């Protein structure tokens, strides 16, 4: 229970930082996908299943607060969470930088393919409500900034692992990195 509580508090903090701070920044910085990057890192590199739940819960968080960038974000983030779980478990190694990047890339691709399908359905009835330009721009900058975040997390892997152990988010005897 302690672990779940600590992971929940950290999730809420990251979600608040993303929706309150990063979303107010100018230019491409407003696209910064902090929560999804942290979720991918947690699931892929730390091998903690809660990372995938962070991702899908963040979609739910956006939908419930009525601040999604695209319709039905829970479904899109859910697709990303599934992609992260499957690729981190069966496809990519958690020990390499390339494995982490590939896992992150697959999550963004899964999320945006789902978004594109949802937008396509919306566009069938209300084409004026869909901006494919905004979709493409979001995809590009999400991908770039995700890689930046993952690079930073990877560079501080040791400190992150110590932090997660100290705050009961992973067990003390675990050393999967």
């Amino acid at each position, binding site marked *: 229970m302690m672990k779940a*509580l600590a992971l929940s508090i950290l*999730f809420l903090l990251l979600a608040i930082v993303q929706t309150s*701070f990063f979303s*107010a920044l100018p230019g491409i910085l407003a696209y910064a996908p902090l929560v999804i990057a942290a979720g991918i890192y947690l699931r892929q590199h730390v091998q903690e299943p809660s990372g995938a739940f962070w991702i899908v819960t963040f979609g739910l968080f956006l939908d419930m607060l009525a*601040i999604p960038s695209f319709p039905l974000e829970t479904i899109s983030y859910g697709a990303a969470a599934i992609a992260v779980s499957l690729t981190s478990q069966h496809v990519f190694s958690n020990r390499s930088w390339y494995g982490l990047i590939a896992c992150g890339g697959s999550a963004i691709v899964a999320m945006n393919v789902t978004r594109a399908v949802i937008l396509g359905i919306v566009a069938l009835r209300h084409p004026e409500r869909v901006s494919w330009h905004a979709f493409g721009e979001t995809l590009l900058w999400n991908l770039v900034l995700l890689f930046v975040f993952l690079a930073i997390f990877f560079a501080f892997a040791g400190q992150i692992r110590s932090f997660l152990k100290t705050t009961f988010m992973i067990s003390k005897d675990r050393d999967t990195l």
Partner: protein
Amino acid sequence: MLFPGMAIASIVILAIFFRGSLSDALAFVQRPLAAFGTWIGNKTVGAFDAATVSPERVANLETERDQVVVDHAELERLRVENQELRTQLGFLDRRGERSVACSIVSRSIGPDASAFVIDRGTDDGVIVGAPAISGDGILVGKVVSAYSGSATVRVISDRDSATAVTILNGTRTIGIAEGMSGALLSLRYIPQDERIQVNDIVVTSGLESNVPSGLVVGIVNAVTTDATAPFQSAVLEPLGDARRLSVVSVLLPESL
């Protein structure tokens, strides 16, 4: 393996459901973060814009600025005249608008932020449909959901937003301004005999429940006319930019 994840989802969902009680505590953290982000945005916006502003655009902007100054002088004269007339007729007493000041605590992700969360809710008199304005009376958006301690505002340029407006031209053209891509608004199905010009000022018409007339929405940016079509359309540029704001005012229902 699934337990921590399910527990996280449950705790977060419970937190969102009971957001009325939690919002004050969260706003304590969110308010300074959002204000800090907005401050950085306002301080650095020139740096981001500099590379994209061409000399032609600067010249156009200067021309527009001159036009605005002229308009402003005329408006100022009308404002004084209007104030005198309203005083005489006692309008101010009848339209004493009450509002509540709110801090923006969260926004949707991306530069075209189309919705934001404020730290005031139904406990403070905020209702769904109430307009959110910036300090100088410019319409920014409308409340789409309200809880006890927080509410979500959708900006007028969102693709799902529609606002009843009047163009301050000779014929006071009315219509529905809808959000479109690029943070602009579109005004469609305007009869061909209406005379609309670029830089005409657009305000709320008051034909929409909960939104009073006369709130500034934006200016006409472009007019598309086809002689063979029964209607013309206009592109509006909203004056309220939610990304540059950390505080808005919501007009309370008693005053509407």
